[in-house]
């Protein structure tokens, strides 16, 4: 009887060991899947220009002008080489403070520097519109520079909440 009991116990332990060993493989699979899903998420992260195209479809913008490398470099001291991709849009109308900026830095360590540069944009617009166009000043005052991972973004717009939400859903 004792032999039977010990044998049985040993068999059960062996079976358990086999089954739990399979769990280890499942864990490895889990780890691999996590890495794969993260990679897939990155591959699936939409280019900022596509996000901007969606914004244009959803919201009526005021004569937007897409600014080029020389503009962000000369006026705001932003080095385009530090960006993986970006969109920097201002209204062509001098009486509109509307601005949409989405930047993805190559090195996440540059997020703070880019955020500071975009804060200059906010401060500039705020100074221009104060005592000049109160309605635009209020729009600027509600805006703020935000960041998420390697993305830094700024939206100054009467439809700011909608646009920010659209951006955040994509990042």
């Amino acid at each position, binding site marked *: 009887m004792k032999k*039977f*009991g010990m044998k*049985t116990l040993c*068999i*059960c332990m062996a*079976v*358990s060991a086999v*089954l*739990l060993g*399979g*769990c280890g493989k499942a*864990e490895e*699979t*889990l780890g691999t*899947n*996590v*890495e*794969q*899903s993260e*990679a*897939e*998420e*990155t*591959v699936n*992260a939409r*280019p*900022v*220009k596509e996000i901007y195209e969606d914004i244009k479809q959803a919201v009526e913008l005021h004569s937007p*002008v*897409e*600014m*080029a*490398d*020389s*503009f962000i470099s*000369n*006026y*705001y*001291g932003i080095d*385009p080489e530090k960006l*993986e*991709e970006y*969109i*920097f849009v*201002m209204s*062509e*109308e*001098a*009486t509109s403070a509307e601005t949409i900026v989405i930047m993805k830095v190559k090195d996440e360590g540059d997020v703070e520097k880019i955020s500071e540069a975009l804060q*200059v944009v906010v401060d*500039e617009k705020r*100074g*221009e*519109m104060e*005592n*000049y*166009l*109160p309605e635009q000043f209020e729009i600027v005052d509600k805006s703020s520079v935000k960041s998420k*991972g*390697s993305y830094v973004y700024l939206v100054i717009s009467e439809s700011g909440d909608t646009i920010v939400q659209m951006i955040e859903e994509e990042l």
Partner: protein
Amino acid sequence: MKKNWWRYGIAVGLVMVAIIGSFGIKALAAGKKTMRTGADIVTGASEIESIKIVKNTYQTEGEKGILGTPEADKTEVESGNGEKTEEGESGNEADAEGGKTGETAEEGTSEDGVVSDEEAGEASESGEKTESGEEGEGAEENAEEIDAYFDDSVFIGDSIMLGFRNYAMKRQDTFLSRMNFLAAGSFSANNALWDVNDESVHPVYQGEQRQVWESVSLMGSKRVFLMLGMNDLNITGVEGSCEKYEELIGKIKEKNPDAEIIIMSMTYVLKGKETGKLQNDIIREFNGMLETMAEKNGWGYVNVAEALADGNGDLAEEYCSDGFAHQNPEAYDVWVSVLRKYADEHLDK
């Protein structure tokens, strides 16, 4: 058997734990595949093709025609733009008295049918073709010299100039890409002389607010165009504003002795929208004093105001974007023509 029931229980329990545990982990792994991760910089990022913003070459054949012909004048532009509808925008009530600036816009009507730049370009082209046909090869040669005239130039001004900057930014594949800008809404000859502080509105350059003479020095500009006054007249009147203007130019020349100075006339406001000292007759008087000051000091003077005026000497309605004083792309097309004509007349300098 009864004595060993506990052994059987342990064995069965171990097996069940092992089975349940293995299925549970597998289920967790399957669920992880669909979870959204927060971080986005992983190895897969290298697989993403970098996307750079290309230059916004909002350029049509028609616009090239205007921008490439130094002799294009107001008449030419108007005839090309004959079919346009007016673009108007609502704005805030103007603050006639007091305040730092005079640039507040008034309530205006917004009209439908804003003509796109493409349509504007095409319309302009039809009006311009005859002239290029008549001028032939001489105009093309001259066009390059005129383009080069704007190398290392900087345009300093208020929101009216800011509109020109934005117009230029949309056309960076033309000679306009040679221009630098130091423009800000509510900027004036008065506040241009302030120190940089929390209330100053100096145009930003290289990521900082700087007094314009510093920015001009950093840019290495050799030609400095200035258009100010809109935010000065209600504060320091005609003579006082001229004095501030001269003082500002003095600062620019002190820091940049080799820079050529060209004053651009202040532009008019829409008829019926004049406010405080922003009356078109006063603006005319101010422009006259600026022209005299420029002549006295050997500076250049560009009269863009008259090119944008209607028969009554007010800002032509077709060039106004906000029912007050700010201008639309058609107006800036005229700026281009006037500036190129000025350049053509001063090519030897």
